[in-house]
């Protein structure tokens, strides 16, 4: 293949390829595939033969609706563009015949668009209804029936279809109705409103102001801008359709490395891996270090259990991450890059490898890229299941082929990193943002977010939440907005107890403090951290002592054992917690916990040990009474609590069966 030149890219930018008129995008990321997206894809392909109208069947990454996997997005002429969730292969033929043939949407599978309109700019063709009250969907059918009857009465039944929605994207607002294709959304619709909506809005084209949902969507998609839109396996799709590698061309031909760094300084982008170190400063420091070779590393070792943002971005939009890495390399004068990705993410590895191969074929990697004289190449290095390798010095050791033990800093990697050379390590999300900043300007990026934390952040909201999904919100959005407004609140309508952020290095934030705006500083003040963006929702039935124990056990298992405070302190702390949770704790144990935690925080070598006490300290801070109850209640209380916890999840009815104690636990 002929290497691309500057002119080629300019041409792509001037005349981007248009979308095909009719298409179906199947979202094939790990989550989707696990839910059966491949079989859905195969079924759609098979059913396509029987379909008279040609449409393009596309493979994309995930848009983030994990709760609805497998998700497909459908565009047909004369139809609103919709996402269907929870599809099955059996539904595929029906989807084609109904959607393309009869111009009808499928009941119970449509995910309402988040791009809600305020004006009725097109005649209504479809009406989505969904009850979002506490006893969800109980009134949906009633409203569907009422609308259908009303439309029949007005002779509109064959012009407007009433569809039961799978998810409305608005929660606890009674019956919600969305008029498609304009996206005008009415909430808290009551039975008397049905006639009004039909007469005024559908016939008259007037918006009912009293019912209109005016709150704009909380989400702003910068990192996830291409996720679910582009084919992750196709460089051409990225190049021609979404102005891929334009930011690189801009950097190479119109900006000096200093100007790139200056633009990042304006954007005030901070590292999205958790610590929040200003990205421009990291690059500047690496650049300032005289060396014959510099390295840039993309940290895709997402070890934090319950987080899948990096996986999703790598799988859905690999070329953007690569482009970000190349810009970083240009800015700091590096000629070699590494993607460090968990071996547990085979799909992400496969797609990044393909992206690298395709970029190399097109001359976007290698010598004299686009004829600019800039040389750069990148490789993949696999992680091997060690959480500590997310720490930058340990990560470097792992890339060098050694065990992932951290080493003391300074010297920082920007001075002496990989093979003793200056190295900048950036998170996947950080790199994915970089091209957007260069194309749209640092000031645009900085217009989102708070004073100290600019831009947006992706969170993976999971746990006891109604809609587990990826969420990208501007910094400064409150936790309550993320959990309740975007993700629909707690599963089964239970009361929220706390939200855990930052994984094993973070802490819990209790219900009363959920109105805190999210930023690096505020979360730190609350005893947690931003972390890479995992967000776990816990309801009243979750025992905080058990949660603290769970995270601590994780850190103890993952401790590399190099420094004593982490190796011994963590283990002792776990012993104390275990004792407390069995009801054998002493009143003095709380003070002991504080002492050990303090020692670990002050004396540990790397972030793992320094932050391992965070879950314990924050649960102790906000839920100290639970610890007290275990200590005062003694073994009988602990047994009762244990039984209550065992009876809780998903209606387990089988009596507890005596379990052989695993060797690992017996020795501990």
């Amino acid at each position, binding site marked *: 293949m002929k290497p691309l030149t500057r002119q080629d890219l300019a041409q792509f930018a001037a005349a981007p390829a248009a979308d095909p008129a009719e298409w179906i995008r199947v979202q094939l990321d790990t989550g989707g595939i*696990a839910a059966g997206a491949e079989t859905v894809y195969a079924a759609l392909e098979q059913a396509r033969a029987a379909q008279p109208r040609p449409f393009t069947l596309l493979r994309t990454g995930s848009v983030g609706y994990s709760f609805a996997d497998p998700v497909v997005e459908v565009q047909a002429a004369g139809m609103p563009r919709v996402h269907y969730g929870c599809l099955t292969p059996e539904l595929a033929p029906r989807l084609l015949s109904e959607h393309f043939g009869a111009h009808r949407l499928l009941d119970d599978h449509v995910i309402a668009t988040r791009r809600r309109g305020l004006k009725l700019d097109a005649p209504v063709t479809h009406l989505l209804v969904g009850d979002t009250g506490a006893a969800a969907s109980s009134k949906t059918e009633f409203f569907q029936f009422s609308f259908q009857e009303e439309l029949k009465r007005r002779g509109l039944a064959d012009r407007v279809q009433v569809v039961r929605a799978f998810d409305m994207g608005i929660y606890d607002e009674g019956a919600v109705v969305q008029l498609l294709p304009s996206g005008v959304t009415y909430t808290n619709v009551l039975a008397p409103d049905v006639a009004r909506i039909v007469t005024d809005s559908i016939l008259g084209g007037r918006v009912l102001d009293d019912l209109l949902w005016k709150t704009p969507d909380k989400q702003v998609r910068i990192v996830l801008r291409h996720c679910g839109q582009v084919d992750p396996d196709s460089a051409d799709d990225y190049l021609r359709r979404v102005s891929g590698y334009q930011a690189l061309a801009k950097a190479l031909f119109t900006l000096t490395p200093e100007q790139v760094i200056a633009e990042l300084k304006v954007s005030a982008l901070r590292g999205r891996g958790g610590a929040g170190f200003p990205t421009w400063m990291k690059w500047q420091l690496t650049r300032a270090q005289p060396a014959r070779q510099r390295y840039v590393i993309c940290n895709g070792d997402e070890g934090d259990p319950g987080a899948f943002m990096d996986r999703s971005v790598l799988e859905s939009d690999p070329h953007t991450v690569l482009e970000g890495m190349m810009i970083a390399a240009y800015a700091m004068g590096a000629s070699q890059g590494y993607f460090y990705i968990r071996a547990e993410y085979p799909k992400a590895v496969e797609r990044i490898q393909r992206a690298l191969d395709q970029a190399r074929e097109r001359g976007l990697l290698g010598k004299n890229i686009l004829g600019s004289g800039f040389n750069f190449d990148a490789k993949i290095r696999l992680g091997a299941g060690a959480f500590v390798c997310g720490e930058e010095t340990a990560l470097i050791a792992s890339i060098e082929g050694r065990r992932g033990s951290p080493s003391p800093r300074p010297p920082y990697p920007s001075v002496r990193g990989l093979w003793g050379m200056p190295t900048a390590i950036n998170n996947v999300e950080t790199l994915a943002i970089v091209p957007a900043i260069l194309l749209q300007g640092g000031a645009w990026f900085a217009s989102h977010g708070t004073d100290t934390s600019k831009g947006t952040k992706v969170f993976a909201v999971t746990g006891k939440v109604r809609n587990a999904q990826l969420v990208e919100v501007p910094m400064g959005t409150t936790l309550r907005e993320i959990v309740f407004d975007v993700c629909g609140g707690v599963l089964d309508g239970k009361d929220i107890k706390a939200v855990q952020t930052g994984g094993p290095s973070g802490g819990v934030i209790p219900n009363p403090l959920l109105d805190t705006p999210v930023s690096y500083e505020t979360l730190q003040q609350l005893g947690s951290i931003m972390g890479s963006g995992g967000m776990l929702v816990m309801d009243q039935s979750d025992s905080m002592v058990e949660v603290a124990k769970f995270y601590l056990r994780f850190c103890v298992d993952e401790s590399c054992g190099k420094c004593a405070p982490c190796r011994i302190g963590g283990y002792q702390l776990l012993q104390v917690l275990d004792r407390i949770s069995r009801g054998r704790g002493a009143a003095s144990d709380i003070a002991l916990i504080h002492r050990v935690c303090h020692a670990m925080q002050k004396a540990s070598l790397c972030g793992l040990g320094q932050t391992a006490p965070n879950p314990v300290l924050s649960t102790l801070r906000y839920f100290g009474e639970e610890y007290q109850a275990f200590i005062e209640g003694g073994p009988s209380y602990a047994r009762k609590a244990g039984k209550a916890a065992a009876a809780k999840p998903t209606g387990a009815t089988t009596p507890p069966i005596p379990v052989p104690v695993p060797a690992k636990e017996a020795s501990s």
Partner: protein
Amino acid sequence: MKTIPAPHGPDASAADLKNIDEVSLIELLEKVEQKHGFIPRDISDEVARLMEVKLERLRRIQGKLDSTIRRDVQQHVSHWRNEEGNLIMILHAIQNQHGYIPREVAMELSRELGVKLARIYEVITFYHYFKLVPPGAHSLTVCNGTACYLKGSGDLINEVRAQLGIAEGQTTADRQIHFDTVRCIGCCGMAPAMVVDGKTCGHVKTSDIPGQVAVLKAKKEKVA
């Protein structure tokens, strides 16, 4: 395996001895000795000859195995020869091929790379991903990420333990089913999740476990 033929006396024919394996041969000798108080010369000679033949065959197999291992390792190494810090990537390749890292291969790798075996083992044992024992023919992995934990993966683990009679990280005695837990498979949207022979199942309930285990056991019988 052939059942041990009752020794007919000192003049047991060589034909009887031909198809017996080593253990039976030794048992046969012992029985003959018990009966007669000594081993007749013709029997002991014949047994010794058969043993020698079998040993020779074993050596040949071993030699073939050694050369295969050497060739494989050389292939992996040549692919990564010019890379710095290639050890982990080579280990990944080896584990992909064998499902674990056999000691013989690690030793060969140590010779090939000129790296001390201790250094290689230091790396293998540090990372959870690398295994030193062969995995079972089938695998059942319960995700124990935080989302799955909150939604009751602990009960799933207990149920699997009870059903299989083994703890996580162990393989059933017949080396058929390997049970493990994993940090997070990134399918938090469908927690609690479980991976059975590479296929991810979401929203698993404790009541689903016996069925899944039965399916795996049925597979095993088919193979046998």
